[in-house]
């Protein structure tokens, strides 16, 4: 490593340039959205091609987005579904992962198979919709947003792998002191596996923040819609009319402003989650190791 050959140095330089290019290519679409969201709507519509900086500067679109009662309501709903959902998910996953990591217990490996089987044989869309929605009466309920996806088997396995790596001696000495499994889990396993828990919590939070499909299946009352379902109306079904109608934008400006509204909503809906993950990033590599799935 001390003496680098010429070929080695060329490779290093090429690698730095190549990865820089990859990073720019990955980041640019997001920068474009950011630039476009603060651009002057009329200039933006006339422009075609890349943006290297905002065209003019206007926060009008953000004002409309923030003043829109639907978006605010969707935000609150999403926060609610995400926070309650993540608490339920983490409780089930931590308890389950700890129990599944106790290999000496006779029946644990069968339960592991019982859980892992659903990774290969997933329930299909229609029976899921009918059993959860109709048989369990979850249509248009808060529970439909937090219970049916509460456990992600992959996350369960990630956490179980982390728990299984805790040395057995720690647990045995606690047991001699009279601690039961609940105490051991809370006092020893949870503090020791904070990295894994942080990563799995993030996984759950992100998937709940971004989820829309279940909401589309089970909810048809607009006041219950999460943010993503409202985004779908704006971005995919292309209707910014309701937002524009609620604002004071003149008739001739509606189309251009409609464009910037789209970009502003993307920023408002995406920024919170993008701000969280860099703090947990250092745990990623450590937390995501997949172990053998067998019990």
């Amino acid at each position, binding site marked *: 490593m001390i003496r680098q050959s010429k070929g080695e140095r060329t490779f290093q330089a090429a690698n730095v340039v190549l990865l*820089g290019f990859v990073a720019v290519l990955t980041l640019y679409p997001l920068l474009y959205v950011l630039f476009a969201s603060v651009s002057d709507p009329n200039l933006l519509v006339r422009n075609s091609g890349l943006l290297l900086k905002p065209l003019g500067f206007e926060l009008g679109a953000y004002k409309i987005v923030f003043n829109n009662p639907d978006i605010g309501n969707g935000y609150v709903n999403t926060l609610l579904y995400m926070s309650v959902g993540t608490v339920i998910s983490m409780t089930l996953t931590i308890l389950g992962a700890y129990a599944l990591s106790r290999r000496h217990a006779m029946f644990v490996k069968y339960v592991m198979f019982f859980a892992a089987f659903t990774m290969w044989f997933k329930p299909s869309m229609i029976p899921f919709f009918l059993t959860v929605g109709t048989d369990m009466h979850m249509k248009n309920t808060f529970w439909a947003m937090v219970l049916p996806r509460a456990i992600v088997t992959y996350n369960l396995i990630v956490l179980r792998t982390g728990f299984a790596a805790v040395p057995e001696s720690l647990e045995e000495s606690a047991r001699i002191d009279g601690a039961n499994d609940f105490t051991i889990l809370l006092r020893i396993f949870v503090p020791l596996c904070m990295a894994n828990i942080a990563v799995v919590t993030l996984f759950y939070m992100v998937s709940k923040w971004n989820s829309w499909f279940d909401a589309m299946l089970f909810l048809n009352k607009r006041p219950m819609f999460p943010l993503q379902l409202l985004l*779908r109306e704006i971005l995919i079904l292309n209707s910014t009319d309701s937002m524009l109608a609620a604002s004071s934008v003149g008739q001739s400006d509606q189309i251009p402003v409609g464009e910037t509204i789209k970009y502003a909503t993307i920023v408002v809906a995406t920024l919170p989650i993008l701000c969280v993950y860099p703090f947990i990033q250092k745990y990623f590599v450590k937390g995501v190791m997949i172990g053998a799935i067998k019990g």
Partner: protein
Amino acid sequence: MVSASARRVQIGRKSLRQRVVKDLRRYKYVYLMLLPLIIWYLLFCYWPLLGNVIAFKDFKPMKGIWGSDWVGFKHFTSFFSSYYFGRLLRNTLLISIYCIIFSFPAPIILALLINELRLPRYKRVVQTITYMPYFISMIVICGMLMDFLKKDGVITSVLAAIGLPNENYLMMPGAFRTIYVTSDIWQHCGWNSIIYLAALSSIDQELYEAARIDGAGRLRQTWHVTLPGLLPTIMILLIMRVGAVLNVGYEKIILLYNASNAETSDVISSFVYRRGILEANFSYTTAVDFFNALISFVLVIVTNTVSKRKTEYGLW
């Protein structure tokens, strides 16, 4: 260790019933903790799985899943003989195979390149940026694609500058697979590289030392040390990927689907959504999905067996 082996000797002398009772008493809290998990899986996985029986019934909302009449394989035969069977299978397989060819190796290459970087801060920045798209919702990604690929959109105007047509690319059946795979790489390449970086960090550094002493250059080190070290991870992920070959991410297809690109974009899951959820053909689409699940299940078992025979690595 002593106590564990002593325990096992002791167990050997007892009857099954005594062993079960002892196990339940000893691990009562463990089983108590498993209870919510088991209930959850029964309710939200196994109950819906049982609901698959409507593939063999004529579902009537009034009679419900369990009360509807049996019709045998009617829905399967009508699917196999329909025009859609060939189209859905072709589209699903082609998108999946393109993903395996292009999106699957991309994170491996990215991880190898990131691993070679000698500048820690730069490395961290590259990682943070390439992970980013993973955190963006499918709705936003598809919204961006629709916006960028429309007539005069950003990507369209860049493509127009190099001589390609200035039209809405999502309306062209010929462009759909490329759009799907390219955006898939953009979204997942960085994130998927994490698992390979984890595997790379666990390769014994002495192996590199030994290879260097034997006169191996960088390329040969990669070939003889790094790749064999990554092989178990690659194989496990490849088996999972091949098993999921018929499960093309339905969220993205449902969002990007339109009548003009249906010829290449319609896959099994988007068909199930459209005909099932939107048009309420519950039994027919469950049959389609059940066929899909069955094939996937067989594929996982086959690839796992092949992988075990050829590389000694497998999921179980």
